[in-house]
């Protein structure tokens, strides 16, 4: 991703250029979506959050002062939206879709295969590994899980993660490191079964 392009898109978006906004969204949407999907494990929620993030960026882009990295600013907004959604769904009953199948996270294997260049066996292995990793992530506490996902998808610095979660810098890294160790342990014990 060329920085010049990103900067141009940001400038364009601040000036109300919808094409520039679309360019910016297209550039970051896959990573944002990946983060939302892993954070919520729900395709519809992930798309919904993606839409909300886009709207939030549209209305607050004037606040981005271009001194820090744009993607860190972007993923901080995304993290806050995820946190709000998790908090909201913990205190309210879960809405029930009239078509339960549409909200199901059971995507057919073919739909879950992202990399069509892989050989079929490789794809299956990747898919299973992703599923195992996702299940193991569920065993972590919310904050640690979010920090790990932001580091992976948002490529956020530990400083930015610490600021987002309002904790000391060392604590942010310690949580991510211990969280990943825990994930490894969980996957290894699964492999042994």
């Amino acid at each position, binding site marked *: 991703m060329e920085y010049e392009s990103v900067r141009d898109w940001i400038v364009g978006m601040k000036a109300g250029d919808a094409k520039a906004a679309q360019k910016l969204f297209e550039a970051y949407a896959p990573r944002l979506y990946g983060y939302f999907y892993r954070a919520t494990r729900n395709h519809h929620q992930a798309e919904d959050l993606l839409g909300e993030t886009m709207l939030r960026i549209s209305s607050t882009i004037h606040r981005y002062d271009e001194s820090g990295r744009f993607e860190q600013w972007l993923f901080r907004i995304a993290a806050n939206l995820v946190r709000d959604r998790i908090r909201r769904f913990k205190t309210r009953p879960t809405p029930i879709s009239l078509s339960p199948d549409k909200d199901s996270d059971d995507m057919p294997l073919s739909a879950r295969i992202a990399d069509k260049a892989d050989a079929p066996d490789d794809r299956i292995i990747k*898919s299973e590994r992703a599923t195992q990793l996702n299940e193991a992530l569920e065993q972590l506490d919310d904050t640690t899980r979010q920090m790990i996902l932001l580091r992976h998808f948002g490529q956020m610095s530990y400083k930015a993660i610490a600021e987002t979660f309002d904790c000391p810098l060392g604590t942010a890294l310690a949580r991510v490191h211990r969280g990943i160790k825990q994930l490894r342990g969980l996957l290894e014990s699964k492999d042994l079964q």
Partner: protein
Amino acid sequence: MTEINYNKLARVLDGESIPLDADELVVLADIRSSEEFLAPLSAALPQIAHLDHLMHKPMAMISRKRFLPRCVRALLTSSSVAAAIAIFFLTMSVAKIDSTTREISAEQLWAVGFESGLDVNEEFDIRLDQLASELQDQSREITLDEAIRPSPEEMTLDSGIDSIESQLQEAWTEDESALDGLGVFFEDTLSQGSTS
């Protein structure tokens, strides 16, 4: 091994040049390889809708809060289906949706209309597929594209709209889970409408 200085290691990972001792280098290498361990997270994601689709996704899903003033304005211009949408919206805020039937009778809508004090002066028989196709037509008016540049008329509301809008906003905050269900419901209804 002495206690790990995570603060120092975090600064190195964030790009600072700080000398590390042998033990710290071992931990740093372990952290870096741990991050590679997460690579499968980016694999096997469901395919996200093409962004064009998302940019033009029906307003109920990506712009619910903008649906509100549009709904109110449509009601005040006495468009029958638009009025039905507004009334249906109100209905959702005061009652749970009946999941066994997808038909909303005119009587139900009239009843809610009268109870809410709205001036509904056209008789109509709303079948959800008709509602869906008309809603889909209206939904083209509100897209993310438009949301980025709100029209001047959207930015000002007269006092009549303000009054009704604030009533609907109260209903919104009281029963947001029902309105989340509404979003899903509209999406389902629209996909039926688009195939009919």
